[in-house]
């Protein structure tokens, strides 16, 4: 019972903290939680806003999907082969820290300002954790498990898919979860500089116009999306890696 209620309580608690903080600060650019919540229906009842949000979600889904499909194999390969890791690791470390916003002019040059560019940005955001968690997960797979597979006649590729992938799945799932978080963030921020329809578009326009209740309402909406996606993800995760769950609770509970 309390377990069920805890998330709701935490949300209410967060909103309460926010409400009090904004009342204490008395700043126009930091509306109260109530003001923000009151704006949500306005946004959601506006057909155009809904289309915007859906457009963003579609980009996110595509970016996330492609990122997962590309990053997991790459990460696993890096984890199993020293050479592949040595080849890609420095390259990734050179590419990833570069802020995409700064490269916008050049990306625009080849890919325009539309969906492709934004999906690319989401892709880059998601792939980072997925690659590295897959990488480290694959490295930590117990050698003798892979050997068992090899002895059964699995080819290196089959071993990667049928042994390393499932064995590293818990770690990969951690990467995907982080990736999901980053997908939502980049979904919004990818629309900061060049804007077409999108959730980020609504948010940053409101920010530019000083419509702070809309800004925070959008933040609440994104947060809600996060909760939903996260819950869905946890469901999938629980199914996939049930075998890895610890058998007993950590015997450290202080309660």
């Amino acid at each position, binding site marked *: 019972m309390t377990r069920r209620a805890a998330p709701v309580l935490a949300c209410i608690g967060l909103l309460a903290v926010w409400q009090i903080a904004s009342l204490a600060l008395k700043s126009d650019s930091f509306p109260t939680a109530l003001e923000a919540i009151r704006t949500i229906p306005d946004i959601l009842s506006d057909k155009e806003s809904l289309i915007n949000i859906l457009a963003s979600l579609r980009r996110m889904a595509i970016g996330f999907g492609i990122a997962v499909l590309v990053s997991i194999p790459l990460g696993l390969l890096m984890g199993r082969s020293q050479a592949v890791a040595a080849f890609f690791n420095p390259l990734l470390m050179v590419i990833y820290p570069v802020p995409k916003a700064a490269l916008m002019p050049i990306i625009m040059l080849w890919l325009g300002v539309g969906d492709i560019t934004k999906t690319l940005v989401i892709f880059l955001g998601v792939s980072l954790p997925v690659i590295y968690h897959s990488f480290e997960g694959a490295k930590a797979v117990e050698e003798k498990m892979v050997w068992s597979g090899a002895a059964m006649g699995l080819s290196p590729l089959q071993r990667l898919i049928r042994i390393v992938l499932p064995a590293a799945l818990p770690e990969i799932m951690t990467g995907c979860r982080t990736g999901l978080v980053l997908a939502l963030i980049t979904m919004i921020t990818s629309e900061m500089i060049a804007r077409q329809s999108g959730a980020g*578009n609504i948010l940053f326009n409101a920010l530019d116009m000083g419509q702070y209740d809309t800004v925070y309402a959008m933040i609440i909406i994104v947060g809600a999306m996060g909760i939903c996606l996260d819950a869905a993800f946890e469901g999938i995760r629980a199914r996939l890696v049930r075998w890895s769950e610890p058998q007993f609770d950590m015997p450290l509970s202080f309660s």
Partner: protein
Amino acid sequence: PSRAQQTIRVGWTIPAEESKYWMMRRPAEFPDIGKTYNIEWTQFQGTAPMTQALAAGALDCATQAPLSLANGVVGGNLKAYIVAQHVFEKPGGFSVYWAVMDDSPIKTIADLKGKTVGISVIGGGTQGPFNLLLKQNGVDPAKDIKLVEVGFAVSEDALRQGRVDAVNMNQPFAARAEAKGGTRKLFSLSQAMPNIVHILEACRADFVDKNPELVKAYVRDITSGMKKALANREETLKVVNEVLKAPIPVLDTYLLKDNDFGRDPGAAPNFPAIQKMLDIYAETGMLPKLDVAQFKHPTIVAPLQ
């Protein structure tokens, strides 16, 4: 011509391009949009990214500030024509100004020495006239003040919270701050020069040269959009509200009123004023000297009927 040629990729930004907002929101009222040509609208944050997009060929026409356009020309090999003008500072109307708190000890520009001053964009369009005014009052903008970048949206709060001693104000934030009270105007850009042009419409020269008829149609629509915006304030408020999502009562406090920027009825660019601004930028060392003539297309320029 193929369909591809019939589409113009246009960049826009908020908050003061009423004629383009009309074209976006009320295309049925224009004879050509959606019929003889299409517009692919992309919104940007500020004019500088649009200059880059123009230079990269990712946009055909876009809203520009004189400084960003000039930067594109000087640094980015951009060749573009100024085809229309959105807003400027009409004498007696609104002029971007620097505000201080009512009880602030800062009374004159000279008092800014040693203070923290906010500006919307460092190196942006307002900085030329701003630097000029400081210099005229014996303040070295590079050494005597601490300049911080404060977007218009937070400028009022930054001032009230004491994060900055003075900050620049723009509409609609100025109207809101004034309604609330407690701040006062220290100086405005109009003291540096009258008729400052804030944003105008520019199109890539190669695009114009290749598709003169298309651009002509576009400029014609901008001209008539400006007319409609000025003629029907009620409807304009609605249009702007749809685009900016700002409540009509807020817009109503300033939009198209005396305390708003000026708009030329024919959206005609004020080339002498632009030249004057380029001169100021040159004077304050932000740009080399430029001649405005290179931005002038012989025929394609608002107003077009």
